[in-house]
């Protein structure tokens, strides 16, 4: 069970980052909306993962993304922020003792909870990401709009991927 989870997550990490780096990196709508589907990996890490490990994994994932995006530190900070929001949201919305599902995926948690969870996490991630990338407040509206539109795009792809995997698992 445990080794299976680890393997599954490593597999997920490799596939998602591969897709992100080699496919989605080249994809954007008018430079306004860019999907960052790799955050799904952090979103669906198991519930039982220790906080420190979660932060380390988020940090490592962000670092890897930064290496490929040539934006050292930007994705790292965004992923760390996302991990923090994830911990906060889970501790607020769920009773920790009553959690019997292994991971917060769409199939386990239902559409309503998962979409709120994902939107919040992705929104924070994108906000940190785009503001660190722009690094100025003078283009506030533009940066904000960019992150919002990207949230829509990322959310769409995340839900799509989750739905596909969920269906495959169940069938």
């Amino acid at each position: 069970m445990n080794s299976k989870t680890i393997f599954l997550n490593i597999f997920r990490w490799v596939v998602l980052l591969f897709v992100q780096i080699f496919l989605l990196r080249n994809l954007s709508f008018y430079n306004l909306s860019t999907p960052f589907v790799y955050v799904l990996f952090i979103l669906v890490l198991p519930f039982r993962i220790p906080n420190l490990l979660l932060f380390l994994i988020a940090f490592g994932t962000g670092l890897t993304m930064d290496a490929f995006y040539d934006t050292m530190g930007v994705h790292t900070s965004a992923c760390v922020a996302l991990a923090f929001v994830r911990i906060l949201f889970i501790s607020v919305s769920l009773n920790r003792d009553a959690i019997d599902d292994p991971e917060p995926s769409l199939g386990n948690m239902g559409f309503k909870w998962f979409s709120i969870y994902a939107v919040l996490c992705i929104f924070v991630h994108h906000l940190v990401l785009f503001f660190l990338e722009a690094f100025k407040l003078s283009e506030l509206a533009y940066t904000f709009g960019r992150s919002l539109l990207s949230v829509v795009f990322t959310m769409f792809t995340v839900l799509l991927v989750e739905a596909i995997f969920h269906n495959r698992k169940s069938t």
Partner: protein
Amino acid sequence: MRNLWIFISRYNAFFFFIIFFTIGIILTLKNNAYQRSVTLNSTNEVVGSAYERLNVLKRYLNLGQVNDSLANENAKLKTELLALKEVDSSKTVVVNDTVNNVQFTYQSAKVIKNSISQRNNVITINRGSLDGIEKDMAVISPQKGVVGFILDVSPHLATIRSLLHSNTPISVSIKKNNALGSLVWGDGNFDYRKAFVKEIPNHFKTNLKDTVITSGSGGFPRGIEVGTVSRKLNNGDFEINLFNDFSTLQYVYVIKNKLAAEQKALETPKLPNEQ
């Protein structure tokens, strides 16, 4: 201490977040040239604009000092200009020693007391013998026009016998035809904007609006514009409008004539012989 540890472990997520997020930001700032330059720039912007605002105030407070320095600089530039003018191309000078050619040097001075309403007006300036001011040096005003001669000198101050003094004749000439005359003030006219040019020979035709300049003798360098002819008097004298306004005089230039002593030494022995 135990409580602290409990506190930290309870909110470990937050502390981990702070630690990792800080590392992320540091990485961002350290490794990205753009972000680095922006941080530096924005810092400078903030600091710069603050300094600029402060500077506006400071500049205003320092106006006096700035004026002083400008006046000094002007004096220096005028000296250099004169040095250039003094080179006489008709002379066959093999070694053109520009240092020795500077016959006149300018020393800026601030007027600390001025009067225009008396019969004999005297101006006090803030330069004295320590600044190299000597008696009978010529004084001009910064824009155009003559002011007078040094009357008395103390170590730090000096008084000027202003042009608005009954005993300050200045040798002038009409710019157009070089007719020599004498510029005086008083004699029934106590308007500080007007003076008289006397002793111009009758055969020179002089029109209104002709410019009057210093003739070059009597301490003033030649060519300093004094005023324009405004009226012809019946006795052949002219009334002129002075270029400089004595009522608003703030800075003056004292002209140091390097050859004054030599000239005096050359000219004075003759006088007793003549008499």
